[in-house]
């Protein structure tokens, strides 16, 4: 059963055509990476499904209902700069929980702070946290409202490569506990093959779906397994890069 459905989606900014005729179906609980060169419109695509932009043509439906605006059931996660610097860890996580009672709020906040491994930092402010911790905080803030879909826009792009690897492992662990549908935008080929059930490769602007690859490797994934390398190289080939430096 498909959760998110893109039908004939096109987008333009003025005279610039950004996305052309995107058709894609994302299943419930699936982790899909949208991969493409910078400027291909992948962030625009995520902003459309997130309800922050209206498409020029076509539509996105979630559970069969067209997206018309942002919705707390689907949370957008930015790079770690999206956390609120004037709130501490606890307050950031509680940000979207204003409809809950104090009691529910407390237990939710505690649970998600633990889940992302920020226990002991409840009263810390974002400026006291590392980039990776801020990113985890933002994920906790998103998960705390119990969304059914998460949109991640190059969430680890600003982190160093070691932290990035750890964050991917964390994300997979959280995804396996929470079973959310995840749309993950990235320009990092390795990242997409490490995380995704399926990788959607977009072309240069105007972005079109060039290819959708099933990543049929069970988690945890061995980054030196032949199948991993085969899939990775297939994407390198698809994007038109020789895998040499």
């Amino acid at each position, binding site marked *: 059963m498909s959760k998110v459905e893109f039908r004939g989606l096109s987008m333009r900014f003025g005279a610039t055509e950004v996305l052309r005729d995107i058709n894609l179906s994302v299943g419930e609980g699936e982790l899909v990476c949208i991969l493409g060169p910078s400027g291909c419109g992948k962030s625009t695509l995520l902003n459309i499904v997130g309800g922050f932009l209206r498409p020029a043509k076509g539509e996105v439906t979630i559970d069969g209902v067209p997206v018309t605006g942002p919705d707390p059931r689907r949370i957008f996660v930015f790079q770690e700069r999206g956390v*609120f610097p004037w709130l501490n860890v606890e307050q950031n996580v509680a940000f979207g929980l204003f409809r809950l009672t104090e009691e529910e709020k407390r237990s939710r906040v505690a649970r998600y702070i633990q889940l992302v491994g920020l226990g002991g930092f409840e009263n810390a402010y974002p400026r006291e946290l590392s980039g990776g911790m801020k990113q985890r905080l933002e994920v906790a803030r998103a998960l705390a409202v119990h969304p059914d879909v998460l949109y991640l826009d190059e969430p680890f792009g600003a982190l160093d490569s070691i932290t990035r690897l750890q964050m991917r492992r964390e994300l997979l662990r959280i995804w396996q506990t929470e079973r959310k549908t995840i749309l993950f935008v990235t320009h990092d080929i390795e990242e997409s093959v490490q995380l995704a059930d399926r990788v959607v490769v977009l072309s240069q602007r105007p972005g079109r779906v060039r290819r959708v690859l099933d990543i049929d490797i069970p988690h945890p994934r061995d980054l030196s397994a032949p199948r991993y390398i085969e899939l990775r190289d297939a994407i390198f080939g698809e994007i038109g890069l020789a895998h040499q430096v």
Partner: protein
Amino acid sequence: MIRSAEKVLLPLAAAAVLLGLWQAAVAVTGTTIFPSPGEVVLGIGELARRSLLWRSIGDSLLRVGAGYALAVVTGIPLGMTLGWFPLLGRAVNPVIQMLRPISPLAWMPLAVIWFGVSNAAPVFLIFLAALFPIVVASMNAVRNIPPMYLQAGRNFGLSAPRLMAQVIVPAALPPILVALRIAFGVAWLVLVAAEMIAVDSGLGYLIVDARNAGKRYDLVVGGMLLIGLVGLTLDTAFRLLISERSRA
């Protein structure tokens, strides 16, 4: 330990040197008009005895406080509104930029026509002086809120008032606080000019009056130093308040 001693001792030493130069200059030139530091201290003592000292400071603080408070309560909402509605901001901004460089002193004749001989005239001038920096900073503060904060606020389903209270205001606050401190400095700066019209009390009036009534230059300089000292005290209080907040 050494650092904090430096922080206190160095400025004190510099002040002592300046006072020494001042004293020496008075002695060398043999002036009878310009007072020595000692005469100024005696002058201030005389003001205290005539219970003019605290009354002048109090009256000035009240006027600056009133004009400044008016500027804060009108300037912040006005500026934030202009920042929030880009079209409105673009329409009004040129007018603000045109009025802004006009010294509040140029408004003195108008202030007298509008408010006559009353406390309202100087309060109005102080209000004007503080208003523009606050409006402009509040406008820019809202304009410069990172879009992702607003996007996150909408994503979590915040109503407009909630978005205002929980995202827009806290996100815009740090630069507005800085502007409030600057605006207070400007307000204090125009005090003397504002008190030259329409009133007969306050530190500004003290200076004008001391010169006109008997050329009491010890009181003129004393009044100047008092304005400086009170200004410094208030600015320090402001700075502590802001850094306290950003630490919180």
